[in-house]
């Protein structure tokens, strides 16, 4: 019921003081879902848990929006190999700052979701990978893990069942690419975060060549909600095709930036004007990047009637991404904005694939030229041309992520870019 969003009560991060402590979490129904599953393994067989999560259609909150339960079902039947769940808390997409709230305010909900996932996929080891910059949140999260070990929710023969699993937390050291799922696996193995060629997919050959599933932190935090209330209930939150609660990270030129939890499919203008308090200084809205730096920018006039769900955003010409919404007011310089985005992707390209390593560099170089007033109109078409030479021609999606903002910012704000270029080179008459 998106229309009733004003009366929505947060589910992922409810307003309960000290919920990060395990006693408080338990007093508020915490670990009930995990107990239910382990306590009645006939009703909640591994297959049934996966089916329920699949039916709920929790769309991956890390950016790709893939059905979480469907992803779980790609794991092969157990054999004598170890099996891993790798939880992605790298959160490096510019504009995204939501998962740190789960680590800080409701870590046990995520732990419980990860444990249920591990049960459903017969996984024996869970790794939680957090970006190195979040060391303060890592330390907080590790306290929660310790509590869960002490209470017997993690470890051997959990709650007197035949299910055992370990959970290890670790962290990176600064690299956007380690948010890419196979880049993260390489980093977990102690290497440079070079994304892997797929296939083989991680479910077949993941960590140390063994079956591995990778899920985002927020995605897994949704799992206990589904077990407690059922897939049908979960489907009633949000809009058709995109359901459940979403952590919207709103930043940029708004009066009240921050992370807010509301149903999927929230009207964009309600989020900007009512939730985030409107544009700073009474200015006009100019543009929105809806889901992190790589999602295509939308002009204010493209936002009428648009809601924050994959269908609506696709129709509008963008994507949901991580729901990290970056809001820009009328004074924003689109040339400077795009130059800085190209600088980011150039800096973060891992360098394995030529179209990305060289492409991101040239995008930045040409943008610097335009930014400094030395660009020519033909440079804009050169940039557009380069994006087509980068997209879909590399191991991972970083090249695409770098190309999309260039293509869409130039085409949607072409007049501003042309105005920064030299008028003409030759006199024509």
């Amino acid at each position, binding site marked *: 019921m998106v229309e009733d969003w004003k009366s929505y009560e947060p589910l992922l991060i*409810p307003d309960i003081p000290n919920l990060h402590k395990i006693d408080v979490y338990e007093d508020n129904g915490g670990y009930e879902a995990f107990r239910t599953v382990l306590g009645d393994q006939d009703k909640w067989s591994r297959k049934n848990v996966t089916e329920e999560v699949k039916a709920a259609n929790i769309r991956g909150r890390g950016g790709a929006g893939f059905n979480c339960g469907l992803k779980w079902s790609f794991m092969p039947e157990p054999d004598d190999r170890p099996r891993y769940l790798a939880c992605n808390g790298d959160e490096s997409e510019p504009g995204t*700052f939501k998962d740190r709230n789960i680590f*800080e305010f409701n870590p046990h909900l995520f732990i419980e979701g990860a444990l249920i996932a591990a049960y459903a996929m017969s996984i024996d080891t869970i790794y939680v990978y957090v970006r190195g*910059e979040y060391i303060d949140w890592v330390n907080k999260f590790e306290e929660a893990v310790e509590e869960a070990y002490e209470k017997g929710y993690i470890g051997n023969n959990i709650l007197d069942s035949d299910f055992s699993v370990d959970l290890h937390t670790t*962290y990176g050291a*600064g690299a956007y690419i380690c948010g890419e799922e196979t880049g993260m696996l390489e980093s*977990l193995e102690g290497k440079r975060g070079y994304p892997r060629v797929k296939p083989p997919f991680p479910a077949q050959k993941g960590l140390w060549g063994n079956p591995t599933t990778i899920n985002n932190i927020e995605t897994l935090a949704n799992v206990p909600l589904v077990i407690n209330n059922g897939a049908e209930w979960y489907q009633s939150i949000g809009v058709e095709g995109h359901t459940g609660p979403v952590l919207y990270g709103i*930043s940029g030129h708004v009066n009240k930036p921050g992370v807010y939890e509301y149903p999927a499919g929230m009207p964009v203008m309600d989020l900007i004007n009512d939730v985030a308090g409107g544009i700073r200084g009474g200015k006009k809205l100019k543009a929105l990047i809806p889901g992190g730096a790589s999602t295509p920018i939308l002009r204010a006039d493209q936002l009428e009637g648009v809601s924050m769900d994959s269908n609506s955003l696709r129709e509008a010409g963008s994507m949901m991404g991580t729901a990290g919404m970056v809001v820009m007011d009328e004074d924003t310089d689109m040339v400077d904005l795009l130059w*800085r985005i190209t600088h980011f992707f150039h800096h973060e390209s*891992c360098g394995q694939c030529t179209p990305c390593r060289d492409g991101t560099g040239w995008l930045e170089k040409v943008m610097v030229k335009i930014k400094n007033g030395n660009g020519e109109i033909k440079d804009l078409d050169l940039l557009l041309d380069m994006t087509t030479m980068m997209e879909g021609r590399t191991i991972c999606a970083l090249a695409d992520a770098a190309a999309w903002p260039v293509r869409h910012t130039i085409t949607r704000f072409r007049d501003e870019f042309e105005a920064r270029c030299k008028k003409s080179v030759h006199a024509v008459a």
Partner: protein
Amino acid sequence: MAEQELHFTDEELNEIEKIKAKFPTAKAATLRVLWVAQKKYGHVEPEVQALVAKTLDLPESHVHGVASFYTQYYKEEMGKFVLDVCTCLSCQLCGGYDVLHQIEDRLGIKAGETTDDGLFSVQEVECLGACGYAPMVQITNGVYANNLTEEKVDKLLENLKNGKMPEFESMVMRQNEKRIKAATE
């Protein structure tokens, strides 16, 4: 660095064993042991990388490859306080460059440099995941200083000169602010 044999203490070796126990291979501990080494020596110059390689019984080339890939490892000696100023996307929009230029101005150095007294290094960095609290600075890979203003930056520099680090700042979701405050008061 001076010509001397670098080594880990027993306590550090203990910590390294605990890290290794998390993973099926010693190689997997590379990132974490580099962190242990950086904490001890303040950087991971080649001698320190060699120590990590020796400790984990790995080729130095592997450790060098890892150390040079990740931005948070200091490849050379840095100031006592490393100010990582985010200028990426939301921080760019909300004055990240003003913060960077103010710090450069006050300290008399440019991004990438260290003050002569060895107290401060300044770097321009990519998104640190604090977009709603922009502009911001991370101090020596640790605490975040959020929602900076000109006054707050000056105060921060003054405090750091006196050896006072800012404390961790909890950014409670605005939806929850009211009741959490009521319950804790």
